[in-house]
């Protein structure tokens, strides 16, 4: 079971986030669900890069090449995405605030009724 469990958890987090996005009754809640979806990609990336018995890819406190390292490339991908993803979340929240200002509601269903 352990050989696919991390991948399955990543898939579960993504699907759960999608369900929340589609059924959300509040735009701020929808943005929160989107950040749950994002978390799935980090879990998947790091799970792919993990190596049993490997250690963190930092050579400052051990002799280089003395132990197997986990894959640093996927970690670099996930690391920048965490911070950049947070600023994109902020941009989405700013859009939500504007929508609420213009239409007086943050409920997606009420908003689509407004469009007519």
């Amino acid at each position, binding site marked *: 079971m*352990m050989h696919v*469990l*991390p991948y399955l*958890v990543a898939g*579960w*987090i993504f699907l*759960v*986030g999608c*369900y*929340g996005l589609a059924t*959300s*009754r*509040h735009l*701020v*809640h929808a*943005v*929160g*669900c989107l*950040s*749950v979806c994002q*978390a*799935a990609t*980090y*879990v998947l990336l*790091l*799970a792919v*890069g*993990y190596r*049993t*018995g*490997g*250690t*963190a*890819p*930092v050579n400052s406190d051990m002799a280089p090449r003395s132990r197997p390292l*986990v894959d640093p490339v996927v*970690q*670099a991908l*996930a*690391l920048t995405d*965490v*911070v950049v*993803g*947070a600023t994109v*979340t*902020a941009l989405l*929240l700013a859009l*939500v*605030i504007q929508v*609420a*200002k213009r239409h*007086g509601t*943050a409920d997606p269903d009420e908003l689509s009724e407004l469009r007519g």
Partner: protein
Amino acid sequence: MNGDDLLIAVCLTLVAVSATAAVAVREPARQALVLAVLGLTLAALFTVLQAPDVALSQLAVGSVLTPLLILLSVRKVRRRGRVDDKEAGR
């Protein structure tokens, strides 16, 4: 299953549970708190997956920044409509 795998499995379960909870909690202000918990469990998972760099950035962003921004947005969106809300202290 050795010790490392057990630890990873426990963290994975915690992450899956808190992600589900973050979606199931429909009230945005409460969801922000659950997202903070999700951020913490993710940071723990990344640490046992030997990714301290990612864990550090997840800890700073996921458990502080995102919930804070969500709480502030919720407050702003709520204040709309209630124009007579004048006690704008904190």
